[in-house]
């Protein structure tokens, strides 16, 4: 038993030094200068615009990926389509591709010096260094979350139920809303919460593609980098606390939804 105690102490020491210590220091630094300094840091107009931009682009990307991700999962699970394995591999690609590279890919396609970018700017819809690029980068990096959450639940459902409803005269829409969606909804929501949390924290791809223009395309994580580089670690830590609070309040929600999604079809 002495061996297992030593093992436990070693693991606790490792996790304490590597995780608990730096995160505690970050939190303490964020509130160290008192509530007034904290308020000044997070109510800076540039910081507020960055937080608002991060939140609404995350919400938009989450909404789109909730719909598209469910459709992708449905295609992968239900249909014998050509290239299923290729589609499945593509869905996992964003997990393997470095997030900065995802941003570089979008710049390589939509950058102002490229043919596509040139045309789109001419049409008045710039993608690179604009909000459209932010949402596209978020859609890229969060693509797998809803798909991978919905897939196993959908696999457990009997397609006969959908067919029965449809044969008995329900319209496609009624079948979708009354038969298909209710059992998979917790899984969709679990994937959506994960998507939102990742989007609010996303840095690498956005540093490359957003252009980082204050009040326009500067998202919260990139704003934090700017404050660090400008020699204001206290302010950076305060804004970090806002993001950390958002992330930590989402974690139990994601856990509960995932358990509900799993429990229904265990």
């Amino acid at each position, binding site marked *: 038993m002495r*061996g*297992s105690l030593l*093992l*436990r102490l*070693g*693991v*606790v020491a*490792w996790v304490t030094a*590597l*995780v*608990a210590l*730096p*995160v505690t*220091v*970050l939190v303490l630094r964020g509130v160290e200068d008192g509530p007034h300094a904290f308020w000044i840091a997070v109510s800076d107009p540039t910081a507020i615009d960055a937080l608002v931009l991060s939140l609404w682009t995350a919400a938009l990307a989450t909404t789109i990926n909730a719909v*598209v991700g469910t*459709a*992708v999962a449905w295609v992968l699970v239900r*249909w*014998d*389509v050509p*290239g299923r*394995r290729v*589609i*499945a*591999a*593509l869905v*996992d*690609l964003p*997990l*393997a*591709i*470095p*997030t*900065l*590279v995802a941003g*570089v*890919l979008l*710049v*390589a*396609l939509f950058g102002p010096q490229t043919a596509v970018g040139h045309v789109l700017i001419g049409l008045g819809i710039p993608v690179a260094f604009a909000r459209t690029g932010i949402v596209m980068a978020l*859609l*890229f990096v969060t*693509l797998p979350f809803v798909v991978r959450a919905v897939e196993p639940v959908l696999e457990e459902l*009997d397609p006969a139920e959908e067919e029965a409803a449809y044969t008995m005269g329900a319209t*496609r829409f009624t079948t979708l809303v009354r038969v298909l969606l209710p059992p998979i909804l917790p899984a969709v929501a679990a994937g959506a919460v994960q998507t939102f949390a990742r989007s609010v*924290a*996303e*840095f*690498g791809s956005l*540093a*490359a593609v957003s252009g980082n223009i204050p009040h326009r395309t500067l998202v919260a*994580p990139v704003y*934090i980098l700017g404050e*660090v580089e400008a020699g204001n*670690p206290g302010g950076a*830590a305060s804004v*970090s606390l806002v993001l*950390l609070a958002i992330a930590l309040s989402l*974690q139990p929600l994601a856990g509960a939804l995932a358990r509900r999604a799993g429990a229904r079809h265990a």
Partner: protein
Amino acid sequence: MHSLRRPTGVSRFIFLGVCAWLAALLLVPLGALCVNVASDLGHVVSVLSGPEALNAIALTLAVTLACIVFNGIFGVAGALVLVRQRFVGRRVLDALVDLPLALSPVMTGLAFLLVLGRSGVLRPVVDRLGLDVAFAWPSVLIVTLFVTLPFTLREVALVLEEVGDSEEQAASTLGASAWQAFWRVTLPNVRGGLVMGATLTAARALGEFGAVLVVGGSIANRTQTATTFIHGALEERQESAAYGMALLLAAAAVALLFVLQRRRE
């Protein structure tokens, strides 16, 4: 698994829509990157074979390898403790392991800067030991260890939960020491989880950017990694250098993806 049918009618439209979406979001940008690199191939090759790029690649590979090894050891140890042992504070430890997933990479970098940086809380200790940590390669390694901490541990824990501990108990009944049981029974059992964890760790370590940028400062030939090399090249408007290195990382990612897919099946 239900028997699958070919899509017809509306389903076919949904299938085509899904294909078009994936192609537009993933394949077309990847193709654009390849075209950009190919159109300036000579220059890309000469930049990527220069000392700055090679040093960045070497640091990235060394850090990735070290993360796989450290996470292999602490991942198995941590999974054994969390799955097999019951003690006060187990749930806290469990939550701490997932905490790195909740932090934006920039926040990770900032947190370690506040610990190891010029006025960091551990600075006196680090200075007394005569170590060169902040804006040096050890800080790059430490933040990458932080961001990759959960992967191997969670994969190994999944396997441990599945197999239970009856085999270890059988081994010890037959007279094996705890150490023998670990090497002969536990380790072979969790091998699949270790490979999966190492793959996820490698993918994340090769591509970590925000934390490494904040804590390492992207100093050429010292703390610059493959990703911060790309960032630096973009800022200096050296697009082809950035695209070349990005393609290299994307190729590594695709190779890791193959391992991942194999394991899934």
